[in-house]
């Protein structure tokens, strides 16, 4: 009996300790970002890696998401004879939800895993220890540029996603299914508010923090050997994807 209690207690303490360590990690990372954000070149490199090189996959996802939204939305709206609202349906679901979330998930899959693996391998090949021995702050070189870059890059990717998605919806809705193009854009302009766009951008900024945070953290405290890195990469992607979806709910309920 006591043994069981001790087990539960140890497990809880372990989780709490981990959460505390994660929290300290992000606080310290922000502190480093503000005090010594590192060379602009490092940040530029990360923007290119996390942002520019993810844009192809984001554009592809966006295009097909917009197209399938238009297709599904059309048949539902046609039942009520309000095909003219197709633009509203596509643009609002893209701008409010799908844009930020899908962009973040794609970036997690593409760049997040790479971040975790990169930092993890530096850890097991003792490069991080080498930096520390030389009294160089590893956060300044490894974490801060990634954090800054992903906060900056995610809203931009999200904006690209929204625009491409809306045009993908246009392609299917107007060109294939024959919705009036004036209605598609006109209704959209009437219904989309600046608040919708703003909340989408705030969301994707938050997702940027989550991606950089979780992936850097998992890599930084990786286990031993190749197996440790592989586990760190997997957990990084899984944890940040789940956190993105959970956080999305809370942020939506606060912002609206």
């Amino acid at each position, binding site marked *: 009996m006591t043994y069981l209690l001790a087990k539960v207690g140890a497990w809880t303490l372990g989780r709490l300790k981990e959460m505390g360590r994660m929290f300290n990690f992000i606080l310290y990372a922000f502190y480093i970002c503000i005090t010594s954000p590192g060379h602009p070149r490092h940040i530029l490199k990360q*923007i290119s890696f996390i942002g520019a090189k993810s844009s192809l996959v984001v554009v592809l996802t966006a295009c097909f998401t917009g197209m399938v939204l238009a297709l599904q939305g059309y048949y539902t709206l046609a039942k009520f004879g309000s095909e003219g609202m197709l633009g509203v349906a596509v*643009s609002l679901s893209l701008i409010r939800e799908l844009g930020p979330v899908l962009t973040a998930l794609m970036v997690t899959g593409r760049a997040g895993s790479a971040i975790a693996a990169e930092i993890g391998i530096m850890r097991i090949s003792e490069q991080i220890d080498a930096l520390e021995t030389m009294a160089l702050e590893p956060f300044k070189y490894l974490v801060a540029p990634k954090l800054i870059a992903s906060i900056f890059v995610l809203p931009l990717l999200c*904006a*690209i996603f929204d*625009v491409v998605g809306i045009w993908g919806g246009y392609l299917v809705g107007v060109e294939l299914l024959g919705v009036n193009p004036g209605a598609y854009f006109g209704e959209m302009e009437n219904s989309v508010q600046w608040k919708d766009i703003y909340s989408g951008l705030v969301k994707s900024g938050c997702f940027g923090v989550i991606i950089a945070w979780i992936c850097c953290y998992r890599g930084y405290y990786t286990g031993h050997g190749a197996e440790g890195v592989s586990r760190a990469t997997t957990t990084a992607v899984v944890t940040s994807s789940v956190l993105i979806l959970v956080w999305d709910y809370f942020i939506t309920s606060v912002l609206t």
Partner: protein
Amino acid sequence: MKNGKLNAIVGLFVLVGIICLAYLSIRLGRLELFDGEHYTIRADFDSVAGLKEGATVEIAGVQVGHVDRITLGPQNARARVYLALRREVRLQEDTIASVRTRGIIGDKVIVLKPGGSERLLGAGGAIRETEGAVDLEELISKYVHGQVE
């Protein structure tokens, strides 16, 4: 050389991102950075049920502005709506403003019918003649109880 290529890639990406952002906010969000093109007038309605801030204001089907703000009027009895209209649109003093629905379940819009008065409404002026939103339920219940004229 490699340095220049990196800069170019990042520059292109940021440029495309910002263009998309600008497109979204200006075209769809109608973010007005310098609101010098509009002036506001107010109108009191008996009911603006269903009207939202940002709804269109039109004359003869042409969009001439949007609903800026909706509040309660004095004595909390009527709804006071502030309309932001484009500068070039001049309204006569006896203009009639009414809340209308576009289609059967469409958005609520404000329709203005220009009057014949010589005097024009300036910024901060008030439209006196208004028609509130037509409550479909009330209408049906009147019909059911046989009170409709």
